[in-house]
């Protein structure tokens, strides 16, 4: 708990966008206030009210009164004072158990990952097995073995909590271990202890803090339960569970006796849980982004330049985009009024660096914008389908198909290729499984897959990246889309494989009417493949070029020129001479 309040104390007054800084939220504030106030009150009570809590007096079994807020018990002891003092005992025991289980769990979890591989595998299995036993059950068994008493109770609950923490810490450090900075630190010769304290622990702080709150809360409840059933604290010592057990025999005659301990257990565990929830929310950046800080930019002018510009009246191009604006939830525009057409059988390239808005432009056309982003435009049409209005999934599937960057993640690894590739045909076109298979087999042959039936039988992991990307193209073509969007389809592939994929796209252009939107950061690829190229920067089209202009370097915009000059090119090539 000490860490929690300390962390709370260092939080900045103004929202800072730095990750790792604690961002306050309602649950966190409520939990902290609840715990801190209760903690202070019971600590003061333990120092000042000991006499009335433990001293015998002639006021036996009194009801609630101004002198005794919750009455007295059979020995004349003040029940309010007893509840507070007992709560202090419970609080301290829960803190001790939390401290022990967290320290041991984190040590075990991190040490596992600095150990040799065999030891690690063995230790991980052990931790997994121990996690499978319910914590309370383990605590009951341990408490029975260790015998009754305060410290025995603390140890039993702490031990029961260790496996969960150890597994969390092991999982967290496992993922941090794969990162390069740990490898470089190891190579540099950073000692093991420093490796843990500098690199592992700081990067797993948030989940561990949340675990602290959870361990405290469950620990408190578990201890109270054990004391209540007589396995924990024994008379004359008392904690909240013991007080409840003492109150039980008189529950019908003096029900007020259970009120104090019950309320305190509730307040303490709810406080800890609220802190846990609050920390979890603070650690999740998505939760914090819900409220826009700036008012929506209503003054943002709708760009109508192209409407003023001489526009080919009612162009017949299958893909028409006018004044496309993509905004974040807070109104910040990311794409500022982009307009273009793609003709039948034309490949339009869009190039730009990260953050240029090229992918957002493409995603608007397939209505796949990430959550929180909205697209508006004066016209957004693909083959007669108005993407601004309501479209059915089927219309969309018929109009637009996509090929993604990473063929490793586009397929479901658990399903065979056959069912995934024929899905569009079966679901949207109502083809039978056999028809769909025949069509897709033909398409796979078209993209130069050697043995289509075998590919349809295999799982994605059995295929190379190039084969998966070819299969992706075949699936995209199965819907006979009017627009094919290829978002960096060759970036994740080796050059020789990428060259093959580019040839497939060329062939599609030559053999079908499909319009292609080809997105890439690689000018070399774009100038080889595309008929026309848009260069984007910061959400604006800075230049439109024909492929010839790009190839011959006839560019006017300084940004395009800079891009072109940045592309490393082979100056020595076979045949061209040294």
């Amino acid at each position, binding site marked *: 708990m000490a860490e929690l309040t300390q962390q709370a104390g260092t939080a900045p007054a103004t929202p800072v966008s730095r990750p790792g800084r604690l961002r306050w939220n309602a649950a966190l504030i409520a939990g902290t206030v609840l715990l801190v106030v209760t903690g202070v009150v019971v600590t003061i009570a333990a120092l000042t009210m000991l006499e009335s809590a433990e001293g015998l007096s002639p006021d036996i079994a009194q009801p609630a009164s101004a002198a005794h807020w919750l009455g007295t018990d059979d020995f004349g002891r003040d029940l309010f004072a007893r509840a507070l003092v007992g709560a202090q005992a419970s609080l301290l025991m829960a803190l001790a158990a939390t401290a022990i289980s967290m320290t041991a769990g984190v040590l075990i979890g991190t040490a596992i990952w600095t150990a040799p591989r065999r030891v690690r595998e063995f230790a991980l299995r052990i931790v997994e097995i121990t996690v499978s036993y319910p914590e309370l059950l383990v605590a009951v068994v341990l408490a029975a073995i260790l015998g009754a008493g305060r410290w025995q109770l603390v140890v039993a609950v702490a031990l029961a909590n260790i496996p969960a923490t150890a597994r969390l810490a092991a999982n967290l450090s496992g993922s941090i271990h794969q990162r390069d900075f740990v490898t470089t630190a190891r*190579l540099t010769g950073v000692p093991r202890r420093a490796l843990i304290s500098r690199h592992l622990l700081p990067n797993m702080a948030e989940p561990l803090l949340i675990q602290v709150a959870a361990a405290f809360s469950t620990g408190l409840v578990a201890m109270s339960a054990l004391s209540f059933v007589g396995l924990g604290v024994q008379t004359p010592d008392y904690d909240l569970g013991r007080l409840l057990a003492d109150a039980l025999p008189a529950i019908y005659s003096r029900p007020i006796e259970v009120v104090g301990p019950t309320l305190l257990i509730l307040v303490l565990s709810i406080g800890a849980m609220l802190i846990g929830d609050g920390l979890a929310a603070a650690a999740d950046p998505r939760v914090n982004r819900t409220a826009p800080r700036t008012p929506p930019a209503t003054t943002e002018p709708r760009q109508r330049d192209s409407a003023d510009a001489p526009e080919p009246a009612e162009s017949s191009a299958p893909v028409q985009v006018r004044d496309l604006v993509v905004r974040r939830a807070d109104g910040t525009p990311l794409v500022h009024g982009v307009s273009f057409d793609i003709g039948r059988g034309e490949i339009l390239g869009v190039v730009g*660096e990260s953050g240029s808005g090229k992918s957002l432009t493409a995603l608007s056309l397939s209505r796949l914008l990430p959550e929180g982003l909205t697209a508006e435009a004066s016209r957004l049409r693909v083959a007669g389908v108005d993407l601004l209005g309501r479209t059915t999934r089927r219309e969309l599937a018929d109009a637009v198909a996509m090929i993604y960057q990473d063929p490793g993640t586009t397929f479901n690894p658990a399903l065979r290729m056959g069912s995934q590739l024929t899905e569009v045909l079966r679901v949207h076109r109502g083809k039978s499984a056999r028809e769909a298979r025949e069509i897709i087999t033909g398409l796979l042959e078209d993209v130069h897959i050697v043995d289509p039936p075998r590919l349809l039988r295999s799982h994605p992991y059995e295929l190379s990246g190039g084969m998966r990307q070819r299969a992706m193209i075949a699936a995209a073509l199965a819907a006979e889309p009017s627009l094919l969007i290829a978002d960096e389809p060759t970036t994740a592939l080796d050059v020789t494989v990428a060259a093959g994929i580019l040839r497939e796209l060329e062939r599609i252009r030559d053999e079908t009417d499909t319009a292609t939107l080809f997105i890439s950061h690689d000018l070399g690829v774009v100038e080889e493949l595309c008929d026309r190229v848009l260069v984007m920067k910061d959400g604006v089209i800075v230049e439109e070029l024909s492929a010839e202009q790009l190839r011959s370097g006839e560019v006017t915009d300084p940004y395009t020129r800079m891009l072109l000059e940045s592309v490393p090119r*082979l100056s020595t090539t076979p045949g061209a001479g040294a």
Partner: protein
Amino acid sequence: MTAEGLSVEELTVRFGRGARATTALDGVSVAVPAGHTVGLVGESGSGKSTLAKAILGIVPTESGRVLLDGTDVSGLGRQERRAFLRRVQLIPQDPYSSLNPRRTIGQTLAEALDPARARVGRHTDAIHAALEDVALPADAAHRYPHEFSGGQRQRIAIARALVTRPEVVIADEITSALDVSVQAEVLSLLARLRQERDLTMLFISHNLAVVEQVSDEVVVLHHGHVVESGTVGDVFADPASDYTRSLLAAVPGRRDSPASAKKGAALR
């Protein structure tokens, strides 16, 4: 073969055991003479990154030797091995994973200088000099990695590798996670440092054009075998192996390539 510099002789690395073992490197020999940069080219699965890891001892080797200035590094004791790892530095590929997000740039550089204690105060001058080398302001030392762009982070990673004045630098795909304009900037920085420091470098990349720009010599790796090696001019102008030829033919966007593009079409 010169004794000075880094060299690898007949290195074999196998993963797994028995029938399911895969050979990642099969008798690979590469020599990086002092003051030279050798580009290591290959496609995914060719074993380029495995070679880097084997040199640094991150993956165990089955046979073969790694020599630094003529000394076999496999038989080194703990202390000597540590010294070797200071003389040979790795620059990792991904600038988002190579810097600890919870430590300032100064702390990261201090750790490279003094792994055990990592005190920033004691190494202020060296840290500022290292940052200046990669054209970053001195106040960058007090900032955290997330305050920098990908290109700046990669420059910090370069500074981290060079701050100990290593004899050999292994750069593993250091520009492949960057935008082209940023890549150009990092490459020109590397070219300048190479000239100023007379660096010995093993430059690993899948991008032939980048390798051509940076390296003196080039080694082409395919399925764990060296298929070709020689000076950049020789290998690129007149490749001896079919594989190298097909790699060169597959590079997109060359201005006069009708013949080689057709040749590439024969490939799968």
